[in-house]
């Protein structure tokens, strides 16, 4: 470990504390709905990053987890009248189970095939959601009540809702942080760097990949379920493959395999979309495409990755 890496490690607790405080006071400075959207997508991207950034597995089907958890949570809360925290839990578990199914099938192949299989499976989920009556088809699941947290705290108050979203984000972020900095995370990195070597060291690679996939899918689902409560709506766009592409873009733009990159990337993309949506129409898609191309060609480390490299370089001089 170089001096600079230990410098990052020392700075980490201070950075985390700073961001936590920022998260606590943010709704008094900015529009809470926007912040909630940012945190939901931030968690979604962090969950995705666990898989691509640390295990080296490119899933092109993560919209299926975000979307299906959103629908499950919406149905639980609206049609069965459960409390919001149980709705989120239900959505998370459902996404985890779906992730297990995807994982079992997709890890039979590697690389490009892995991406294509996850994409095809998520398209299957999309068609099922589209055709199933309970999901509302084209209209989506509308009028989901936010309800009362633990049956007590009224979430129709935006500030209360914000702190729930913030808490959910922190829980998800903590789980990912712990997973990355555990022996499990080290093995994932070993598999990413050199899979045959990891196999020869006696690790059951398929088992670790599957576990990473299930954790990532569950947390993506947690983000999706929470998002449904925030917007009181689960819609087809959340299960569409464009959403799977968007989360790849957020992660890539922020910095693949960095701790904060996905959050930064998600914030930039969400901000850009809400800024541009009513001004440029379908050019939003073009702009997303251009950012994608630029990231791949010129900017593969992403925003946070480039910043870290910059600090490292200036530290050497």
């Amino acid at each position, binding site marked *: 470990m170089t001096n600079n890496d230990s410098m990052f490690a020392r700075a980490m607790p201070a950075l985390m504390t700073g961001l936590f405080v920022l998260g606590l006071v943010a709704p008094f400075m900015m529009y809470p709905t926007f912040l909630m959207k940012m945190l939901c997508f931030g968690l979604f991207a962090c969950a995705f990053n666990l898989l691509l950034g640390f295990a080296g597995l490119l899933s092109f089907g993560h919209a299926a987890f975000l979307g299906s958890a959103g629908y499950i949570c919406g149905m639980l809360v609206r049609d069965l009248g459960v409390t919001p925290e149980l709705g989120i839990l239900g959505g998370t578990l459902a996404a985890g189970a779906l992730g297990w199914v995807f994982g079992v099938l997709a890890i039979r192949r590697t690389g*490009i095939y892995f991406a294509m299989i996850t994409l095809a499976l998520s398209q*299957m989920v999309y*068609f099922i959601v589209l055709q199933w009556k309970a999901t509302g088809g084209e209209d989506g699941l509308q009028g989901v009540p936010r309800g009362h947290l633990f049956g007590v705290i009224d979430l129709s108050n935006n500030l209360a809702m914000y702190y729930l979203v913030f808490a959910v984000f922190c829980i998800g972020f903590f789980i990912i942080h712990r997973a990355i900095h555990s022996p499990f995370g080290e093995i994932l990195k070993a598999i990413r760097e050199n899979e045959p070597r990891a196999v020869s060291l006696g690790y059951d690679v398929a088992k670790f990949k599957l576990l990473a996939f299930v954790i990532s899918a569950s947390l993506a689902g947690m983000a999706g379920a929470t998002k449904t409560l925030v917007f009181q709506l689960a819609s087809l766009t959340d299960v569409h493959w464009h959403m799977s*592409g968007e989360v790849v873009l957020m992660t890539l733009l922020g910095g693949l395999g960095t701790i904060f990159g996905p959050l930064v990337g998600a914030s930039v993309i969400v901000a850009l979309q809400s800024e541009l949506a009513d001004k440029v129409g379908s050019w939003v*898609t073009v702009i997303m495409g251009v950012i994608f191309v630029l990231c*791949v060609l010129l900017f593969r480390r992403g925003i946070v990755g480039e910043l870290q490299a910059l600090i490292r370089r200036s530290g050497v001089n």
Partner: protein
Amino acid sequence: MEIFGVPSALLGSQLLVGLINGSFYAVLSLGLAIIFGLLNIINFAHGAQYMMGAFVAWIALTKFGINYWAALLLSPVVIGALGVVLERTMLRRLYKLDHLYGLLLTFGLALIFEGFFRDQYGISGQPYEVPELLQGGVSLGFMFLPIYRGWVVVAALVVCFGTWFMIEKTKLGAYLRAGTENPQIVQALGINVPLLITFTYGYGVALAAFAGVLAAPIYQVNPLMGSNLIIVVFAVVVIGGMGSIMGSILTGLGLGLIEGLTRVFYPEGSAVVVFFIMVIVLLVRPAGLFGRA
């Protein structure tokens, strides 16, 4: 006349629709397989390039009065040339990196193309008339066959088998196969591999554009016509495996037919049947039907 309680005319016409879809799957998965063989890149922009092929034909007809037959040649050339430019300026920089970056780059390109055409032409389809020579239909006794639909199947098969012949039986094809096996050695033998790669990408893309022109009179010319199709084609590629040219063609046609049958017997399942088959193939034979493990 009824087969399994289904009128034969219905069964026949759905099988024909299946065969047509299968022809498109075959041409598109063939293009993907050729590109993957040499470039190790999955061309996510394939669906967008298919869509642009249809649009070039439509623009040529409505703006410049260029007829269908000329467009059938012109459109693959234009879109193939665009492919060559993309390969030379962008894809080329990624060959030394993880293959996944190629997928991500072409995904970005697909978004750009689709967004641009959606902005220019909206999402409602533009009609493209069937050329005069191929209008009308013939009665086969058990069903009615529109001539254009028959033509699409024949044209797609001719192109597929022509491509197979070129790759398996000609000198250029031998270079291509050798380049797929080991590009360094082929380069050392004095063959211009970078040029071969550029040509291959251009040809694969041109195939997609050709399929687009064939599709224009059947489906409407629509900016989103390629985006859902390409995911089905990905599933076709996973089922067939990309190791074999003939495998891609047969898998494409076969899955189109199965989809057609599903539409007769269980219409709700027709959108997902290909994905369902993919799941079964992954469980039983993970390398794909024609794949090398």
